């Protein structure tokens, strides 16, 4: 009997040492258990007194082999893992796979970013009609009948009093007529000017902002634009106001931002000045408020307007406005998120 056990031990242990897979180990274990059952069934042939001792031996044998199986299983699993690691090794320099999404147009990207910045400051987005009446586009904006801006040279007319809006400022009036202060609106959209050359496109986009409330000052305009400049460009972007003229604001200012390319030291982009003209702004002209039924002695406000294409060109380094309307997929796909 003991010989049988020793033979089985030897056989099992030898086979176990040679087994390198979990599957093989399982099969070996089944085989071992079957053999052990055979040995145990021989117990009935033993004398009664010998049985307990024999039983003890068998049990100890079984336990020791099973422990070995367990230990071997750990080794085998590790071996298998190593094999798997080796066999599944990839050439990590091969190209990655991705599903290609499209891209939003840079005009939309800038528009969204502007909306994000200003809606956080409490601006509502308002979109007025693109075909406007003379009144909303000019007259109500304190642009008198004899102002050069009204010349056929600049404006596309559809009928005597109907035109393609030349500025999103037209939206200001519609909002002020409808709402009462406090007003904070952002009016993005398409505008049209009869200009078509290397640096002008007959259609482009503007973003107009308007704040009307009690106690609004020029310092508030400066503060808001400084916040905009930091968020849109870099946290070190500076704002400079300088006097200008727009019929619908007084005082009017041109707003320059420190050049994002050279940080204000002077480069080609800023023509050596360190500053880039980005938008026009000013305190809302009293006549404009009056035209909308807002009492200019109670309320003041400021307005600003910027060209979205201009911001996009500055931000992304696009050097030709015409590229924006060619819709070449090689251009557009560069703006993927």
């Amino acid at each position, binding site marked *: 009997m003991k010989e049988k056990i020793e033979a089985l031990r030897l056989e099992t242990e030898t086979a176990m040492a040679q087994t390198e897979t979990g599957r093989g180990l399982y099969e070996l274990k089944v085989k071992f258990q079957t053999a052990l059952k055979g040995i145990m069934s021989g117990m009935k042939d033993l004398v009664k007194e010998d049985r307990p001792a024999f039983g003890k031996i068998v049990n100890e044998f079984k336990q020791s082999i099973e422990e070995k199986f367990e230990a071997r299983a750990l080794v085998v699993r590790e071996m298998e893992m190593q094999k798997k690691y080796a066999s599944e090794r990839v050439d990590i320099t091969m190209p990655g796979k991705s599903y290609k999404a499209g891209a939003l147009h840079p005009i939309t990207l800038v528009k969204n970013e502007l909306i994000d910045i200003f809606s956080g400051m*409490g*601006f509502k987005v308002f979109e007025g009609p693109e075909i406007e009446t003379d009144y909303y586009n000019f007259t109500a904006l304190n642009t008198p009948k004899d102002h050069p801006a009204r010349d056929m040279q600049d404006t*596309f007319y559809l009928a005597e009093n109907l035109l393609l809006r030349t500025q999103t400022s037209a939206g200001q009036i519609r909002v002020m007529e409808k709402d009462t202060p406090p007003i904070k609106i952002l009016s993005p959209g398409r505008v049209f000017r009869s200009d078509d050359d290397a640096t002008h496109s*007959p259609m482009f986009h503007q973003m107009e902002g308007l704040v009307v409330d*009690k106690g609004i000052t*020029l310092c508030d305009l400066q503060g808001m634009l*400084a916040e905009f400049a930091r968020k849109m460009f870099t946290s070190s972007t500076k704002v400079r106001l*300088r006097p200008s003229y727009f019929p619908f604001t007084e005082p009017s200012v041109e707003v320059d931002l420190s050049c994002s390319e050279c940080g204000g030291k002077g480069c080609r982009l800023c023509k050596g000045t360190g500053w880039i003209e980005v938008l026009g702004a000013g305190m809302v002209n009293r006549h404009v408020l009056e035209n909308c039924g807002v009492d200019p002695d109670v309320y003041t406000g400021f307005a600003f307007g910027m060209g979205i294409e201009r911001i996009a060109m500055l931000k992304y380094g696009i050097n030709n406005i015409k590229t924006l309307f060619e819709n070449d*997929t090689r251009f*557009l796909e560069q703006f993927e998120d």
Partner: protein
Amino acid sequence: MKAPFSWLKDYVDIDITAQELAEKLFSCGFEVEELSYLGEKINRVVVGEVKSVTPHPDSDHMQICIVDCGEEYGRDLQIVTGASNVYVGMKTPCALDGSQVVDGEEIKKIKKGKLRGVESLGMLCSGEELGINDDYYAGAEVNGLLDLAKDAPVGEDIRKIVGLDDWIFDISITANRPDCQCILGVAREVAAVLKKPFKAPDYSFTAQKTNAQPIEVEVAAPELCPRYVGHYVENIKEAQTPAWMRKRLALSGIRSISPVVDITNFVLLEMGQPMHAFDADEIGERKIIVRRAKKGEKIITLDEKEFTLSCDNLVICDGNKPVALAGIMGGLNSEIKPTTKNVFFESAKFARDNVRKTSRALGQSSDSSSRFEKGVDAYTNERGMARALHLIEELGCGTVTDMRRDVCAVDLTPRKMTTSVAKINALLGIRVPESEIVAILTRLNFKPEIDGDSLTVEIPGYRDDIDGYPDLAEEVIRMYGYEHITPTFLEKASVTGGGLTDEQKRELHLKNVLRVQGFSEAYNYSFYSPKDFELMKLSANDAKRNAVKILNPISEELSIMRTFLAPSMLQNAVRNIRRGNDEGRLFEVANVYLPKNTQAGEQPEERKRVVLGIWGGKNDFFDMKGAIERIAEAFHLDFSFERAEQTYLHPGVSAKIICDKNSVGELGELDPAIALSLGLDKKVYLAELDLTAIEKQMDDRIRYKNLPKFPATQRDLALLADEKLTCAEIEEVLLHSCKYVTKATLFDVYRGGQVPEGKKSMAFTLTFTPDQNVEKAFTPETLDGFVKKILGNLKFKLGVELR
């Protein structure tokens, strides 16, 4: 507006450089667009004195000169010249070795060299080689060397001698400051910004009594001519325009003609007042009438062009006929001539929009008309006239008489305005000291007076732009300096809620739904060409042809407002394909414009649409349909598709999109005939949706539904169907034969092989989802039961069998 530095110095003691002045002007609202040095092209040219002249041994016209150019450049430079007017003792410009002179518009470099064997260390110059004429320096137009004045210091930079040592400021003047469209106006600003006194020009003259028959002035159209000042000058004498005035004119690019003409030009430049001089003896019936032209009336202007006028044009007439096109140009019939004895000067204010309209309508313009278009004030009418009369006296070219006419519809009393320092500061948001405000307004001639809290100013006659306290605030801050404005963040304002409207959010969502499907966003012009209608094969009465037209388009190609977006998308696809972008997907969201009564001034209806384009690759109709279905899913829209024909789509591969029983768009393959005409070798698929039409049904809210207790199971069925049966018909039966079928997806269509002629094999995956009431998962046997029922229905309703 071009202002020479030297001229500005006539009115202000400027003690800073031209560059520094440019920065000062910039800070107070006058951007100097260009600052150019007049003598930029001339370099290393100095005054030389000819010491000796000997003939060139090998030339019959050249001479060898020894020239004294002073200690620095050499006392005895040998220079060969071909000019015949050279003489010993002559002072003339000498271009040294390595110098630059001009040759027309070009720069000519001078180097030492040998002329027929004789060394020449430079070149003696003519006026032309310095780029100047007689108005800069007398004798500059002589054919030969420029004979300089005897007192010209030897060795001196020639630019200082001939007036080229000067800077020209090209200043951008904003539309509210027409008063600065002249040297005097800019000088006033310079004086204010430099805090220096302004030296006004001399306006004095003595009016002599005249016996001439009076000339009467009548203004019949005061709305177009608010002020008309006339003055009679007699005994016009021949005289020479002095060098100082000729030079001023020359710096502005104007040639000297005669003293009277030069004075009118000078006053325009200096004062910004366009002047006109009539030959008084040509004024019929001694009458000047300012009126609207009669329809069909004709005038021949000074430049001998004839114009037929309308009643929108303002004319100056004598007793019989028009003698000038008001503000634009005088008539040939009253032009001053060398023989003119008496002159009637005109200094008027004409309505700027009328001058502009007339000028545009007739295609006739002048320095006067462009000045009037910017706006001339009534105050300057009088000042300009006074200055002109003073100059008549100063130049001694005529006798100023006491015959003066002034027809004025404008109130000339100085305007006063009362506000307060507090109001100005409240608008600015900073505290500018009262003393500073007073000092600034004083320098700008506003004569400010403080009385307790109130600030009263008298608005200068030339400042028509000032009409409220914000204008004064602007005057203050532009002089005080915008750098004093400190950023604040709406300290006193109310808190408001911001952001997008639901509609705007949905538009953005839509863009992203398309973007993740590989579509990039396009932006196209809102206008296109009538040819696009032909390209899209629109029939003559197609509603899409009813478009808004631009009255003054840039070109025919950009002349009509879009009524649908597909033509732009097609052009985008074509451009991409031609540029080698073989496969692509684009979309655009934009408005189209549907006219109402445009002529009556009614705004067209603007409707938002989305257009999609797919071209190249393995794409087919179903890629496009999938994109549209994805939109439907994202916005919970119930779209169905019906076969339909669009003129620009393939009749067999196109459909209209139905939503809530309305046709809201179309999709399909570009008509191969159009593709052929465009030479396209790729298929293009287009789809367009009227977003305004489905706006109300678009709902992108997300609602959670409880999960079923048991997982869904799937079964694939390969069906044998008649060729003419559509997928939609089979799907309809599949979905409605068993309530647990939540999805029926076609995954394969097969023809040929074991499939009989006239039949097709269609394989569907059916998804069975147990609902909330199902108490245990579906067993294979239950599913068999469902399938059996479905097959029964298919057979009964459509004759479709399991393959």
